[in-house]
């Protein structure tokens, strides 16, 4: 009996946690498949008619695909540059003497904790000086600075697990040290690189604050800014907002479902690990 009770409460707990995490989101996303009157109906309409009218309207009238393209370009290039620089720095930090590496790693982590408002004003002035406001590179570079710390942590901890003897062997065989990094170490660290890339991508894809101030030209704005500034003529266009939200979150949800284990490991690298 007690055993049964314990099992039962576990099931109830799991059910509650799943509902807490999913229900509000599912409800919101479901609105995007409803008709205009169903969205604001009281009592609520549980099952949508599965009309794609809001998607059509979001694409035709609000130019959602345009925001999406900008997001893909910005988040994609930010991730690419972060991984490129992160691999170099992470490898170096894995091989430097412990003490030195520790000081640098802790300094980097402190950088990642700073509030964005403390850097926003000067970054904006700096980009204006360069003429890079409203450009992709103007957004990508600050994103690289913000995603690098966690990426470097993940990569440095990963490279540390790869024995130095492997590089030594490659160098005996005539590789340069850089060649050994490219041909021996990087192929072995694909899982670590992948984890760092997922987390950097999610960050850059979701970032809103800097995107809001650096890019004011709608032609270059990213998805989060588009969603935040969604304006209807008279009423709030909930259906279209939900449609845009679904388009934005679908790739993230897919990533979480496929790679939850990697994400969890990566996140704990920046925070705590056994």
């Amino acid at each position, binding site marked *: 009996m007690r055993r049964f009770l314990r099992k039962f409460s*576990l099931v109830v707990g*799991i059910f509650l*946690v799943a509902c*807490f*995490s999913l229900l509000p*989101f599912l409800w*919101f996303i479901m*609105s995007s498949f409803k008709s205009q009157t169903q*969205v604001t109906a*009281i009592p609520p309409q549980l099952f949508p008619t599965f009309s794609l009218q809001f998607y059509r309207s979001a694409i035709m009238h609000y130019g959602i695909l345009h925001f999406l393209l900008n997001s893909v370009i910005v988040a994609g290039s930010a991730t690419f540059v972060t991984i490129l*620089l992160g691999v*170099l*720095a992470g490898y170096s930090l894995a091989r*430097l*003497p412990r003490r030195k*590496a*520790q000081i640098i*790693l*802790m300094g*980097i*982590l*402190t*950088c990642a904790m*700073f*509030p*964005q*408002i*403390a*850097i*926003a*004003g*000067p*970054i*904006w*002035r*700096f980009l204006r000086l360069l003429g890079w406001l409203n450009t992709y590179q103007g957004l990508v*570079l*600050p994103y*690289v*600075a913000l995603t*690098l710390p966690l990426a470097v942590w993940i990569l440095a901890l990963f490279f540390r697990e790869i024995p130095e003897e492997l590089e*030594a062997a490659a160098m005996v065989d005539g590789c340069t*040290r850089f060649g050994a990094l490219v041909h021996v170490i990087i192929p072995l660290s694909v899982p670590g690189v992948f984890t760092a890339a997922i987390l950097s991508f999610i960050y850059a894809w979701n970032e809103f*604050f800097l995107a809001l101030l650096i890019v004011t030209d709608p032609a270059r704005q990213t998805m989060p800014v588009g*969603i*935040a500034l969604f304006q209807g003529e008279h009423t709030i266009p909930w259906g279209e*907002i*939900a449609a845009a*939200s679904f388009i*934005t*979150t679908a790739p993230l*949800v897919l990533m*979480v479902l496929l790679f*939850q284990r990697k*994400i*969890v490991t990566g*996140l*704990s690298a920046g925070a*705590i*690990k056994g």
Partner: protein
Amino acid sequence: MIRKDQTFHFFLLAPLLIILFLFIGLPICQSFFLSFHRDIVGLPNLGNAFVGWVNYSNLLHDPVARHSLLITGVFVGITTFFELLLGLFFALLMHHRFPGRGALRACVLIPWAIPTVVSAQMWRFLFNDAYGMVNYALFGADTTKYIPWLSLPATALLSIVTADIWKTSSFAALLILAGLQVIPEDLYQAARVDGASRWSRFQHITWPLIRPAMLVALLFRTIDAFRVFDLAFVMTQGGPADATNVLQLYGYKKMFVEGWMGYGSAISVCIFIIVLFLAVVYVQMVGRRLLEARV
């Protein structure tokens, strides 16, 4: 052993350090510099005269700023408390072995993974005064009783608090779960042999051993909560009557809406100092544990 090649390491690290210097280090120094100057974006002819501590003394006597600090403090306190509580509950649950544990972990990660802007719009929809599900869940179809959550000061703050707890409890849960997973199973077995009850096993084994993980989660969530911006910007724009005008939003408005770079910088320097203090403690704790774990 490979020769420790100084220039090799220098070239590997240089890009990282340059980027961090240009986009984090330098801007912070410049924020300090700007906070001692009068600098108005719309009026470039005014120049940027050095004004000493004027921005800071204005800030001290600015009732909106003081209110903003109070609001942010309340927000940080309430959200962090509930996030840790829920996070602990989630973590204890996810620590059990059951079929579909991976699926549950993925579910819990979804609120964390979606953009804050999306969750803000979602909660704005759910808290709607005429057809929001929160009202429907509380009052049914009786629309006369419906509360305009986002346009009353107290409930507006409650709304962004709810949205934040929903979004970030899962992250706290992951940090705590990582702490739970390193507790050796034989400790529990020994306690069970000695006839310890479930509660006393939690009290004497689990709790003391996950306290460091809880503290890390606490610090991380506190730091992150001080940076709240997206939720307030989308859900309430800081209103009604500044009830959700959190610090970062206030700084943003001063700098980028009204163009008071100098004054806004003074605000951002204050936020920076509060966060820096917490961040240094956090990094010391996390960094030590992590880097000295395996030698």
